[in-house]
């Protein structure tokens, strides 16, 4: 030891100091890395704290003024494309045939082209389909009808449970469901991550054997929309919630029009019995997401938000537009991100597809109206139920295929080829039905042509099916002036 000390004492000091400096610098670097990693979390810290069940979109808007302002753009109703857009369009007025096709169902009373998210609650008040309930336990519709209208829904579901929420009449939750579809429906209030808030989508994924919690960010940019823009039905046989209108997506065996029809036939679901033909009809809702899955844009990895919520530039900032609307309203931010053609050319490409699908859809509707009228003539002539049963099955299938193509607002562009296939199936089913009915009529010695009804206007068509829309509108007016005012306080 003495020897070492005497010989080179500085070596040990150098070793000591060198190690100290090295460890000090390494520690400094490590703490810097940790600090900068923490900064990453704070890049995205909102200033106003938003609680888990915050349903007021304007409160979220304090943190995200640009997103909120663009969301408020859904109040705009000035954009009209060839068939749709965000304007108010009375679809029964446009196509009175629909009244006949839905005779016996609430859709024959009132059906409009949907306006923006901003109107979600207001339009469900206004629709004749929801009737004019006089008290919380009155009216034709269940609470299930609120499910896709408001960020107040998750809050109430957490309180009442899922089945507890669906239970009861639509008017019973009127004073709770106030804010139109908005921030909380798709975003986590703390991190702003996209999240699922509606049980039906989660249940449908589980039924298909898929794990929704494994969805990527890009998938979520479509799946948040798929919480509502899908085909659904009210399952009255849901285990543990019998006789409650339990919101269910018929996806267990797949999301194609054919597999959903097979599913409905398997579970024996009927939405309504047609007033004229007595066929057990399925009402397709709006299978937008399912149709999109069969189109080329989905195949190429595009999400709903890519076209319906484009990335916008305002001053020096970029943000996602929350003015969810037709991409045709701002082609430069939507189509032209990928396609280099001119605006005129791109619009023409869209309209061309829509026109062609509409052309065959119109034909299928006329044939379906004929089938319903001819079935009625057969009943009137004394046809029996066993005789009619096979024909009615065909009418059921035909109307499902037609409605699947018609009810999805963007279907004819999202998947033109698939829609053409589905409409062809509808026409095929209709002709099978009409052939069978013609034979029955022949057997009953009714050989004259069944005339096509005079349904040139909505009024004529509604009169034909025996709807008293005047009284319905009167009652609705009363309801809006009294009950709705008591709900909203406005």
């Amino acid at each position, binding site marked *: 030891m003495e020897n070492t000390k005497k010989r080179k004492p500085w070596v040990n000091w150098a070793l000591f100091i060198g*190690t100290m400096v090295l460890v000090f610098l390494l520690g400094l670097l490590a703490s810097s890395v940790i600090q900068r990693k923490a900064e990453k979390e704070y890049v995205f810290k909102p200033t106003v704290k938003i609680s888990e069940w915050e349903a007021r979109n304007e409160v979220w808007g304090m943190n995200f003024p640009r997103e909120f302002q663009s969301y408020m753009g859904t109040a705009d109703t000035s954009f009209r494309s060839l068939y749709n857009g965000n304007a108010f369009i009375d679809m029964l007025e446009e196509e009175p045939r629909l009244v006949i096709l839905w005779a016996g169902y609430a859709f024959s009373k009132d059906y409009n082209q949907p306006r923006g998210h901003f109107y979600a609650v207001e339009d469900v008040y206004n629709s004749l389909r929801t009737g004019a309930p006089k008290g919380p336990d009155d009216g034709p519709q269940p609470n299930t009808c609120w499910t896709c209208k408001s960020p107040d829904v998750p809050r109430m579901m957490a309180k009442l449970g899922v089945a507890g929420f669906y239970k009861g009449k639509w008017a019973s939750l009127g004073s709770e469901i106030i804010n139109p579809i908005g921030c909380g429906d798709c975003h986590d209030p703390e991190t702003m*991550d996209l999240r699922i*808030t509606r049980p039906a989508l989660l249940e449908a994924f589980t039924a298909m054997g898929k794990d929704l919690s494994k969805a990527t960010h890009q998938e979520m940019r479509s799946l948040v929309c798929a919480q509502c823009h899908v085909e659904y039905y009210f399952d009255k046989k849901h285990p543990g919630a019998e006789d409650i209108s339990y919101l269910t997506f018929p996806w267990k065996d797949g999301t194609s029009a054919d597999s959903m029809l097979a599913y409905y036939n398997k579970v024996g679901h009927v939405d309504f019995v047609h007033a004229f033909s007595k066929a057990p009809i399925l009402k397709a809702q709006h299978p937008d997401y399912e149709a999109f899955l069969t189109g080329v844009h989905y195949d190429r990895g595009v999400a709903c938000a890519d076209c319906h919520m484009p990335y916008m530039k305002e001053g020096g900032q970029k943000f996602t537009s929350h003015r969810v609307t037709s991409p045709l309203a701002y082609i430069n931010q939507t189509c032209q991100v990928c396609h280099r053609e001119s605006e005129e050319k791109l619009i023409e490409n869209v309209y061309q597809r829509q026109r062609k699908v509409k052309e065959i859809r119109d034909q299928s509707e006329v044939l379906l109206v004929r089938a319903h009228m001819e079935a009625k003539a057969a009943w009137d002539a004394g046809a029996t139920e066993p005789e009619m049963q096979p024909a009615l099955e065909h009418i059921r299938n035909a109307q499902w295929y037609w409605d699947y193509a018609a009810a999805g607002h963007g279907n004819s562009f999202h998947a033109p080829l698939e829609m053409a296939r589905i409409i062809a199936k509808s026409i095929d089913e209709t002709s099978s039905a009409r052939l069978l009915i013609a034979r029955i009529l022949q057997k009953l010695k009714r050989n004259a042509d069944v005339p096509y009804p005079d349904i040139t206007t909505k009024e004529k068509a509604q009169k034909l099916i025996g709807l008293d829309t005047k009284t319905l509108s009167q009652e609705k007016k009363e309801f809006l002036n009294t009950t709705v005012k008591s709900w909203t306080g406005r």
Partner: protein
Amino acid sequence: MNPIFRALIPPTRWRRPVVVALGIIAGLSLFLFYISNAASYLSDNPKTCTNCHVMNPQFATWQHSSHREVTNCNDCHVPHDNVVRKYFFKTQDGLRHATIFTLRTEPDVIMIKEMGQRVVHENCIRCHLQVLENPEEVEESGEEEEAEGEVEWMQRKCWECHREAPHGTVKGLASVPHAMITPQKPPVPEWLKKLVK
């Protein structure tokens, strides 16, 4: 044994403390390797580039562009003509970025350097070569003679005209304040899972 190596070996009684000191240094280095996600830099995953949040604008704009379907960051921003050049460039560029970021000297609006520009331009040509070689397109632009050989192609950069591809003209961290880069929570919240069960 090598005399230099021998000189580094401490006297017997000092060996234990030196081993401990070396252990501390190695441990800290490993810790540094771990917290900085160092292994991820060997991959091509675009998420790696957002290990430093200053790259958020570049990530967000790419993610909203059509290029996201066919490219990742490295497809454009590192050379692809040979493996040696690729990793040499990646190391060189990466170490420079790391140094600037650690010293907190990164500018608010990050502009590409000359060396990076050349690589990106090469990569534009690597994928879009057909457009340049198509004689019809060259004739239309009236630059048939100029367009002969690689030298001319390198004189003007693609983005002198194609300014928005793919990151757009908006730059800087403040330009994408609410871009969603890395989700922190799973898409199905716990309360919903409980409600459905």
